[in-house]
Structures are given as structure tokens and as C-alpha cells.
């Protein structure tokens, strides 16, 4: 019937559109294997595959290889995700379930910080970290995640918790559970889907948070992948093949996370009820 006909039409729309969207990425894969002269040609794949782009790019900085930069970034990410998830769970439970004085006031403050441009705080924060001697370390990058830096994630968990029927808490309360017990035994396990979403987005966003990395990390030994890539761009003559190869590798962790956790992207957000 018409059902089938319209589905056919949908494919006709969706196929070219998704190909158009993904085409630059496919071109990118091909280009990362091209020599400098072949790069400007519009062909997708090179005549001669330059695998050297990968090996030379990997060891581009004479002091450290990209293994070092990937390692640095992953260690930083471990702490960021841990901090982000822990904080979002604890604070989300506090705002989502507990009744305390000035709760609504603090919650509206939290929502307002969502809209605060980070530039207003960045200069004093930088001065603070400089005075404490913490620049050129990961502390300024990691610390905010443990202290509710992801206000958006707290909001997300609060919305999720509000969707959980209160009867569950009340039943546990009658059984003698304290508010802490309810958190660890009832709410904690139930908000896992929301926490996955928090973890995934914390990972992705801090991977791309170039500004903070640029600001706080200065010695090559501590560089993240993003800063490693920047070393190519700063050169007088950019080694495009190597740069594109390493750039491509730099998005692999995000891609892996995306494919492993695909379901959580749309559904995680949908169920948290972001609806205005």
C-alpha cells in the first residue's frame, strides 16, 4: 500500500543524503594515504598508498611519539569520566530527590551556570592555577569534572531521576532504608542508563576541549592528542598527508565509543526527557 511506497521514497531521500554527509570522511581516509602531490586531486583513493604517512606521522615529534600523546589523553579522560559520572550521580540525586532548604534556589543557580560563557571565569581561574603552581599539569583539566563542572550532566540526571516513580523510594523507606541507602540500592542502579550517557559525553567533549588543553599544557611531554596535532599546523610547510593521517587516528577513540554505545546516544537523551 502507500506505506510501502512512502518507505521506498524515504530510502531515495536518505541514501544520497547520508552519503553526502559521510563523503568528506571517506575522502579523508583516502587522503590520509596520499602523497603531497596527489592530495589536490579529487580522486578518492591514491594510486600509490603512502602508509608512511602513518608511520612518519606517528613519530613526527622527535621527542615523543603519538603513543605518548594518546596515553596522556586517555589517562586524563579516565579521571574526567570518573569525576563527571560520580558528581552527576551524587548531585543529581540531591536535586532530584532530596528536599532541603533553598533547593529550588540552588537548582536555578545550576541552570543559570549552563548559560554562563566560560570566558568570564577563565582568566581568574588561570591566575588561580598559576599562583598554585598547577599550570602545565592535568589538574586544571580534571578538577572541574569532580566539582560539578558538567552542570548539563547534573541537569540530565535530575530529569532522569524525576522520571523514576517515587513509590520505589517510599517502599524502601518503610523498610527502614535511609536516604543514603536509597541512593546506593534503589536510585543508583536505576540511573545507570543516564550515567552511561554522562560518561560518553564527558569523554567526547573533553577529548575535543582544545581551548583548555591549549591553555594549561605547555610541555610537549604532557601534550594531548589535540595539541600533538597542532604541532603539524604550526609548521611553515604543513605535511598534509601526515596531519590527515594522525587526525584520522585521533578520532578513532570517539568513533569506537560511539559504535559501542550507539543506543545510548538517542535513547539516553530521549528518556531523560529534555523537553524544554
Amino acid at each position, binding site marked *: 500500500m502507500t506505506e510501502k511506497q512512502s*518507505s521506498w521514497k524515504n530510502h531515495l531521500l*536518505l541514501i544520497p*543524503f*547520508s552519503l553526502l*554527509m*559521510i563523503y568528506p*570522511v571517506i*575522502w*579523508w581516509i583516502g*587522503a590520509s594515504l596520499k602523497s603531497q602531490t596527489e*592530495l589536490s586531486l*579529487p580522486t578518492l583513493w591514491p594510486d600509490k598508498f603512502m602508509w608512511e604517512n602513518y608511520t612518519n606521522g606517528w613519530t613526527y615529534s622527535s621527542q615523543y611519539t603519538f603513543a605518548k600523546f594518546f596515553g596522556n589523553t586517555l589517562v586524563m579522560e579516565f579521571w574526567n569520566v570518573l569525576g563527571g559520572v560520580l*558528581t552527576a550521580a*551524587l*548531585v543529581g540525586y*540531591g*536535586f532530584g530527590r532530596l*528536599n*532541603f532548604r533553598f*533547593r529550588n534556589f540552588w537548582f536555578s*543557580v545550576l541552570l543559570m551556570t*549552563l*548559560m*554562563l*560563557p*566560560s570566558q*568570564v*571565569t577563565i*582568566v*581568574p581561574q588561570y*591566575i588561580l592555577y598559576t599562583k598554585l603552581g598547577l599550570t602545565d599539569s592535568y589538574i586544571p583539566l580534571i*578538577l*572541574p569534572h569532580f*566539582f*560539578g*563542572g558538567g552542570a548539563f550532566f*547534573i541537569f540530565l540526571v535530575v530529569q532522569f531521576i524525576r522520571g523514576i*516513580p*517515587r513509590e520505589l523510594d517510599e517502599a524502601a523507606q518503610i523498610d527502614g532504608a535511609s536516604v543514603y541507602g536509597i*541512593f546506593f540500592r534503589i536510585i543508583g542502579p536505576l540511573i545507570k542508563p543516564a550515567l552511561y550517557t554522562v560518561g560518553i559525553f564527558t569523554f567526547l567533549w573533553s*577529548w*575535543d576541549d582544545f*581551548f583548555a588543553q591549549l591553555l594549561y599544557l605547555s610541555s610537549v611531554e604532557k601534550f594531548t592528542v*589535540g595539541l600533538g*596535532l*597542532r604541532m*603539524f599546523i604550526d609548521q611553515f610547510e604543513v605535511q598534509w598527508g601526515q596531519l590527515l593521517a594522525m*587526525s*584520522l587516528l*585521533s*578520532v578513532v577513540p*570517539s*568513533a569506537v565509543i560511539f559504535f559501542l554505545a*550507539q543506543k545510548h*546516544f*538517542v535513547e539516553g*537523551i530521549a528518556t531523560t526527557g*529534555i*523537553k*524544554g
Partner: protein
Amino acid sequence: MFGRKSGSGKRFQHNTAGYLFISPWLIGFLLLTLWPILQSLYLSFTEYSLLDSPVWVGTDNYSTITTSDRLFVKSLVVTFTFVLFAVPIKLLFSLLVAMLLNKNVKGMSIYRTLIYFPSLIGGSIAVAALWRNMFGLEGYINHILSWFGIQGIGWIANPDTALGTLILLNAWQFGSTMVIFLAGLKQIPKDLYESASVDGAGAFRKFYNITLPMLSPVMFFNLVLGIINAFQMFTSAFVITSGGPANSTYMYVLFLYEKAFRQYQMGYASALAWILLLIIGVFTLINFTVSKYWVHYEAEGGKSR
């Protein structure tokens, strides 16, 4: 969003536990947000280079910025142009894509992956590098154009088109906006469309009378955050164009960054940050005021915050 009322009459107060649970955020807010905000306000009235202690200069920074700093005016013009084009293009584009992906079609997860993937990596320095290559004089875009007999130019090296390429890159990263639209679309009850079909409404009328009003809270959310984010655009301007050519992509935050962390004029940069805060505040306020006229909340369940 649900159950707020159930049993609220005799709910216990958990002051200690409540503050204990929110303490990570509260401490962070007081020390890493509120205190820096106040300090930045103070610094904006001083001259400070990190080495000596701040010197009070009154409103000098503000008057210099507003009366005699041509880079300020330039960066403001560039940023407003960017916001004016980038935000509506991205909103419209992500809404269309979300509607396309909201259909019940076989293999939808594959389409969704292909379409979402670019946004996943979009903000990173890697894509900025890709963009710089693709839009170069010898880049890939010009070769495509040459097939159609169009003589390409160096899109990024040309002051007239450089900002356009950044706007396009911004639109290509429509993913998170689109996902939020998609979530909103999924919450519109199907029977609304069905009864509209019975009444003989066409696709356009359904879109105009059902989809748009039902989606307006989500649209509002995306619009507010979209404007705020667009004002703070940094990475792609920094990596792809470094503000050039001829300052045609000299975004406001790039200007602020250079004042603060290249020239170490911390006081001046703080004043710039406060001006940005004011601009964003005014825009957000206008948004919230105007929203009364076009954002529709459902009688039940919709108005939750």
C-alpha cells in the same frame, strides 16, 4: 518531571543529606565559578599582567574598548555575522534531518550512524585540519566545482568567503542539536497526526499546525544554547584561519584569548569577557521574553522545569 506532587505534603526535610549530596557541585560553584566571576569583575577595572599586582584604573578598560579599539569593533561585527547566519542555518538543517530520521524505515540505524558521525568528531582540531585542506585553493571542493565549469578560489584565503566556510563547518556539526530535535519529535503523540489526516490535512499543514507548536519547547532550548555557543566559537577560527585573512574571521573569543594569554592584558581581557557576558545575557533575556509568544507548553507534563 513526574511525581513532584505525590506525597509532597508530608515529605521529610533532609537538610544535611541534601547539602552533602550537592556539595561537590556547590563547592565547585563557589570556588571555581562564583569567586572567579567576582574576581573577573574586579580585574576588569584594573590593569594586570600576572607579574605585578593589579592596578585600579576605573572604567579605563571599558572606555578604551568601546571608543578606540578597532579590533573590538571588527571582532564584534564578525561574531554577530557568524551568529546571525550559523544559528538559523544549523537549527533549520538539524530540524530537517531529525524529521528525516524520525521515519520508520528499515536500516534506519545505519543512516543515523552515517549522518551523525561527522558531528561526533566535528568540534575537534582534526576536523578543523580537514576543513582547511578541503577548502584550500588546491583543495577538494574546487575540483568538484571544476567539474561544473566553476573556477574555484581559495575559500579560506579569501576574506569574503572565509567566514562562510566556518559557518558551513558549524552546520555540518548539527548532531547534538539534531538528536535533541529527534527526541522531541518522538514525544509527539502519533494520534495527533492520525486525527489530522482524518480531517484531510496535508503534510505541510500537519507540520505547521502540529509539529512546529509541539516542538517549540525543544526549538527554544536549542535556540538559546545555540546562540550562547555560537558567541563562544573558538577552535575552528583558531585552527583553520587564525582569525584571518584580513581579520575576516576574527571571532570575539579569539580576540579575548590573544589579549589574555598572548599579551597578558588580564584586566583588559576580563573587561572583554564581561562585555561578552552582557551581550549573551541580553540575547538570552530577549529569547525568554519573546518565547511567551511562540513557545507552547502542553497543559500536562510539558511544562516541567
